[in-house]
């Protein structure tokens, strides 16, 4: 029951002039009131889908983190006999008896079509299980492990839940490992451009005048140069001795150093109209520093948009990779990422004869959607009007 209501109830018959003054015990209510973050969290919790999505995102990150352990095999482990092997399905019983397994393949080479043809072979039972032994591997470069979450009971047996690619590498394992790059580095880029965008856009819009002019000219300059040549130029400028990962990291950061322009324009546009509002003046009269006015007072009124653009930027970043690889300047083996996997699927051969190579696309969609709904939840939590 609301404190005010109680007060009302109690004061029913006390009509002293003091009546409007809240009763003493209400002051203790300070403890009952919650901080804004707490409030947001409460609101957020009520948003079921957002909660679910949040969980999914966390799971994705866990999978990425423990990819070594979760993935059935090393993502770069090639297998001569299993190029373009189709996905296997898990069976639970072998003639009535409980025995989780997949069926091996009958493989023969078709010299005219230059390919291997696979037939599931019900004779060849490959028993599988959880926490199976495997050839030792470095876990997060910390210590060596001998077990993997799931896989064939004796290592080396064919086990391709999502099929294999042109070098007989396990697609599932590759997707799991791909999550690492795609869900980390990509986001770094997004974060960078977000920061720059809001800050520079904010300053530009809040100050107006020559500051605005300067920033806008800069934006024009950056925006005027199409990304593709930029990428190519930069890619060429990067020393060859760098590891593929470093190169990619460098490129993403560089991209994001360009990518902030749009957001900056949007923020600026809003700020130009917002800065005349009284509460901004009030903030200034409250001796808020410029940065604080921009970041704490004005930016929040724009948070919905920012969240939206964020969730949109992430797939863009992941896919930028694909474009990069298309230009031959993307990530390189042995590093795997969703973008690279998709890139490898971008040919008629894959589409026509190995559709399972498209599954990374699914991963992207799932990740992106859950991030988006998570964003929705946050947005509502931050919206004072939303109930």
């Amino acid at each position, binding site marked *: 029951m609301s404190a005010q209501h109680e007060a009302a109830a109690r004061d029913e018959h006390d009509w002293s002039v003091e009546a409007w003054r809240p009763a003493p015990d209400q002051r203790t209510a300070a403890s009952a009131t919650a901080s804004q973050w707490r409030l947001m969290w409460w609101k957020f919790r009520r948003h079921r889908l957002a909660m679910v999505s949040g969980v999914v995102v966390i799971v994705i990150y866990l999978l990425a983190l423990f990819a070594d352990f979760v993935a059935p095999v090393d993502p770069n482990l090639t297998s001569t006999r299993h190029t373009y092997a189709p996905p296997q399905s898990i069976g639970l019983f072998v003639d009535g008896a409980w025995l989780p397994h997949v069926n091996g393949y009958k493989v023969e080479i078709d010299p005219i079509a230059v390919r291997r043809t696979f037939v599931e072979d019900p004779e060849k039972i490959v028993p599988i299980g959880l926490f199976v032994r495997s050839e030792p591997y470095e876990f997060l470069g910390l210590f060596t492990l001998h077990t993997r979450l799931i896989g064939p009971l004796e290592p080396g047996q064919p086990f391709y839940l999502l099929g294999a690619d042109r070098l007989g590498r396990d697609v599932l394992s590759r997707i799991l490992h791909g999550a690492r790059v795609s869900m980390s580095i990509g986001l770094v880029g997004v974060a960078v451009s977000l920061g720059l965008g809001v800050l520079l856009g904010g300053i530009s819009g809040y100050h107006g005048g020559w500051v605005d002019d300067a920033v806008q000219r800069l934006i024009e300059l950056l925006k005027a140069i199409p990304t593709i040549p930029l990428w190519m130029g930069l890619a060429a400028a990067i020393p060859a001795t760098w590891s593929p990962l470093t190169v990619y990291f460098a490129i993403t950061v560089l991209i994001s150093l360009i990518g902030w322009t749009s957001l900056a324009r949007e923020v600026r546009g809003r700020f130009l109209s917002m800065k005349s509002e009284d509460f901004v003046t009030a903030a200034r009269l409250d001796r808020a520093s410029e940065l604080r006015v921009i970041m704490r007072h004005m930016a929040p009124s724009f948070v919905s948009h920012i969240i939206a653009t964020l969730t949109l930027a992430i797939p863009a970043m992941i896919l930028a990779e694909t474009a990069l690889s298309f230009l031959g300047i993307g990530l390189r083996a042995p590093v795997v990422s969703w973008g690279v996997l998709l890139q490898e699927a971008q040919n008629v051969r894959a589409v*026509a004869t190995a559709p399972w190579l498209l599954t990374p696309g699914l991963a992207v969609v799932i990740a992106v959607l859950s991030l988006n709904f998570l964003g929705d939840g946050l947005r509502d939590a931050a919206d004072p009007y939303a109930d």
Partner: protein
Amino acid sequence: GQSSPTPSGEAPMLAERVAAGGLAPLADRLPESPRVVDSVDGIGRYGGTWRTGAREAAPTWPLRTITYDHMTHWTPDWSGTVANIPESIEVNEDATVYTIDLREGMRWSDGEAFDADDLMFAYEVWGHPDLAGFPEWMMSTEGPGVVEKVDAGTVTVTFPSPNATFMDGMAQVTTVIGGDAFTKYPAHYMRRFHEDHAEGDLDAQVADAGVSTWQELFTLRSDTLLNPDKPTLNAWVVTQPLGEGSRIVAERNPYYWKIDSAGNQLPYIDRVVFEVVQDPQVLLLKALAGEIDMIATLINEPENKAVLFDNQERGNYRFFDMTPSDANLLNFAFNQMHKDQAMRELLRDKQFRAALSHGIDRQEIIDLIFIGQAMPLQTAVLPSYPQLHDERLATQYLEYDPDLANEMLDEAGYTERDAEGFRLREDGERLGFAILTRADKAFMADAGQMMVEHWQNLGVDVRLDVVDRNLVRSRKNANDHDVIVEDFPGGARDALLRPTPWVPMHHNAAYGIPWYDWHRGEGGEEPPANIIRQFELWDQVNATADTEQRLEAMRQILENAADDFYNIGVAVPLSQYGIVSNAMRGVPETMSGSYWFAPPGPTNPPTYWFAESAN
């Protein structure tokens, strides 16, 4: 040639034009003695459009199909050359004087006469300081040959020193000034763009064309694919040039000078249409949809075969064989002129290379990347071309034997190892190098990746750099590379044309760029004796008229190469293929796949035809 049948048949579309009086009768259009060629599937029937494809950047397929009418042709079996445009080409025994005897009454596609003056004009053009320049096959070691007009139907080409490459050279397709150099400049047409001959206001034309000098204009107008107005001697004349819209279209040449043995004027097929694409995938889809009638480029990659195979019915096409003649699919060129002295030492160490060669599990690579459809071999002329096949060169250090490899490395003195188990050079640096390969050929990167593993198992710290092919090239030019992976021709007769892996005679000889520069007199570095020897032999090959002696010199080169073992080869393909519509006739079941053979040119596309059922 043989007594030619009297020209009788012509394409209906032409017959109409003749009837309408818009065109001279067949007899007046053909030379006295047309060249007679027959389809491998007998007498064909007229009509149809040959739909095929080409790449936008540097299109080579059109050059091998519609514009392959040079002075000489390869024989379809690539055993040698035959005169194509001229009736005959006589050569004296020391290969210094060639006498070209043209066909009486032969005409350009616009009906103008084609005679010695055209050749003379071409000669003039080559000689002009800032025009095309002499084609390679006009160059003898002592300098360019001299073309002289004997009479309207005869010219002689005289070389200061013997030039054995003349006939072969003219049979080749090269893009800038290739085998067609003699007939590339129809005098009556091209004169108007030539400073010395132009009557009209040349500058005006230059301005209109948007170029800055008449030389540019001239070069532009002389390009067969770009300029539909230029008359040619080809079977089909370009009507929609490259770069306008997304297609190249070529229509039959009413004055074409070849007939079949029944006397029907060739070509059988009315039009050729090239779908110009940037990404081969598009062509592949068209092929699957049956919208490509015959093609042996761009899409005929091993990895596409499965898809093509599955869609044969829908696409209504079949495969034909292109006998591969690559000297190797994966040739690892070790930069023996490396800028860094220590690296140079290392990469020059034959023992080292041999060891590495033993360290490669070729069969694994073949099984994985070429689905078993390749043969482990060093970079060498293939057994299928016995004249030049060198057993030792082809098979030395071939078998996979890590222990042996390690042994050899130890012997070579790389016994020290560091913490991570990598071997060390004398100077204490890690024993290792970077493999440079191009992003656009996936199989190279894949293979490279595997080699890296193989070699790291030997304790050699190998890195793989997959980069854009331009980058590969410019690094190569700048001699900024350790090891470069490339595929090389030269597995068959083309060994006589581009023995790059064995003689650094070409800018792709990544194992010794400075040697190459030195040889062509562009600085570089003086090579060691053995290389100089190779160069001498190579010049000899080009200067010897007698075939047997040529081959002998070539064998010598290959033998030395076997001793020096410049490159490590991995595998050669067992088969390549093209696709041809079931409705199309006249395409041989097999032809050489080497670019140097310019397939399908020598198999006479003008004799291809469409069966009744066709479009």
